[in-house]
């Protein structure tokens, strides 16, 4: 049953060192505030799961939270590479990082299978792809009817999943609209879930087939306006594309990175996100200034 709490309390209650944790959001609704709170509370040895590690995992990895990463695309989308992740993989800085790498199709199927409580996912994938030579968690099995070789991967079942959504109602039901990504699966595949929302409203007035997660599938809800910034929340604020471009520079150097994290993450609270996002509302795209407030 969903409890309304502060993000600090949710992270404190649900997290511990060594857990398998997914923070999801496919470009849209990326839970930046949750990532920052996990970093601030100093959790270590996490197995991080995410299709597109993106800035949030670059930050968590660079701050030494993770010992393993399960992923399918480790880039800063449209900008370039993830420099903290590279430093961990190439130079074991700040700590060694084991990786388990998949394709998007495999991860999407694995989350779907996790939400369906299956032990594995089956799909027609990895044909000719070398990943299956380097990842022992990719196996080929035969269709029992046609004999066709199909790819199998273990389902994803995180200990905790974090997502960001537009709205909760007072009962604790969650509404996600727009690019819905893999968030429903992230929550349903996890043992526990934490959802940050832009706002809490009395009652939804939406389409009968809108993506809604009932209150009994959610453990903690924290109202954190702007929590996705510099990602975006459809209907609230736009993607702060400049922040993504700036990250490429800020993350290139270890000292610059640490200095930036100290100032913009370690010395902050979740409240800071409301201010960061207010300059990028959809009606005034191009006004944000997240990285240098």
């Amino acid at each position, binding site marked *: 049953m969903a409890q309304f709490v502060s993000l600090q309390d949710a992270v404190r209650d649900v997290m511990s060192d060594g857990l398998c944790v997914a923070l999801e959001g496919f470009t849209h609704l990326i839970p930046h505030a949750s990532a920052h709170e996990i970093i601030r509370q100093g959790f270590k040895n996490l197995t991080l799961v995410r299709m597109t590690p993106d800035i949030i995992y670059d930050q968590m990895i660079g701050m030494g939270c993770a010992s393993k990463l399960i992923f399918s695309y480790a*880039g800063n989308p449209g900008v370039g590479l993830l420099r903290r992740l590279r430093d961990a993989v190439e130079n074991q800085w700040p700590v060694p990082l084991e990786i388990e790498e998949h394709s998007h199709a495999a991860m999407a199927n694995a989350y779907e299978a996790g939400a369906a409580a299956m032990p594995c996912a089956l799909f027609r994938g990895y044909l000719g*792809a070398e990943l299956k030579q380097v990842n022992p968690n990719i196996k080929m099995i035969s269709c029992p009817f046609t004999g066709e070789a199909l790819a199998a991967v273990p389902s994803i079942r995180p200990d905790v999943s974090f997502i960001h959504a537009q709205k909760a109602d007072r009962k604790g039901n969650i509404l996600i609209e727009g690019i819905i990504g893999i968030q429903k699966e992230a929550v349903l595949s996890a043992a526990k879930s934490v959802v940050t929302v832009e706002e809490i409203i009395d009652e939804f007035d939406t389409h009968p087939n809108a993506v809604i997660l009932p209150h009994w599938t959610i453990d903690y809800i924290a109202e954190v306006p702007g929590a996705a910034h510099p990602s975006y929340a459809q209907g609230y604020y736009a993607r702060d594309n400049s922040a993504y471009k700036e990250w490429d520079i800020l993350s290139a150097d270890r000292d610059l990175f640490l200095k930036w994290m100290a100032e913009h993450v370690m010395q902050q609270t979740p409240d800071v996100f409301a201010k960061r996002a207010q300059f990028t509302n959809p009606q005034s795209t191009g006004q944000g200034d997240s990285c240098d407030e």
Partner: protein
Amino acid sequence: MNSHAEKNEFTSDEMMTIAASRMLKSDDVCFVGIGAPSAACNVARLSHAPDITLIYESGTIGTAPDILPLSIGDGELCDTALTTVSVPEMFRYWLQGGRITIGFLGAAQIDKFGNINTTVIGDYHNPKTRMPGGGGAPEIASQAGQIYITMKQSLRSMVPKIDFFTSYGHGNGYDDRQKLGIKTTGPTVLITDLAIWKPHPETKEFIVTNLHAGVSKEDVQAHCGWEVTFSKQITTTPLPDATELNVLRELHKRTNAAHQRI
């Protein structure tokens, strides 16, 4: 080699994007990779292929953005889409379901058979450079009806042997693809900043069929790591016309304005 840019008042990048856009038709259903492919697909939609269906892996189907998205999931894509589905549905029903006619990819490293590496330079377990990885590409490469590839030429990007098979093209050529049980056609065209390449019908090696205006065979070879085969009937890529150039430049102008912060 860049002289044609001044002479004809367009850049080799513009030539590449416009040549790539011309490959697309209104009845194509195109799974769009980010970057160069995205620009080409949207120029096609805004010029000669207004009814083309553009799909981004974030779940947006039939999208018509006014500006180029920076990522594959910008809000603009959803705002203008016919509908937006979940990521598992995108990969299961739409890509694996065989509903995509063209998968349009970029590449960090490519070989002459259209195999693509976007994973690592060096050894996988001890990489010299760790790149982003495959994302959607491994299954786009095997499940979309045909694959179009667009990328700038260089000795680093067009290599005799790729370091890692992220996405399978034609393997070592001939019917390697069919032998693996892949039913789709694979790469059918490569559009670079210098030329247009198509696979030889039998060997499947990419051969140059068109040179862009002002580009010589020597230019192409100088920017390619394998020994290039040229078609016997090589032709010059038609110059960008005023409409194409205008559509592309306006698109970039709107995009830059939207991504700028004051």
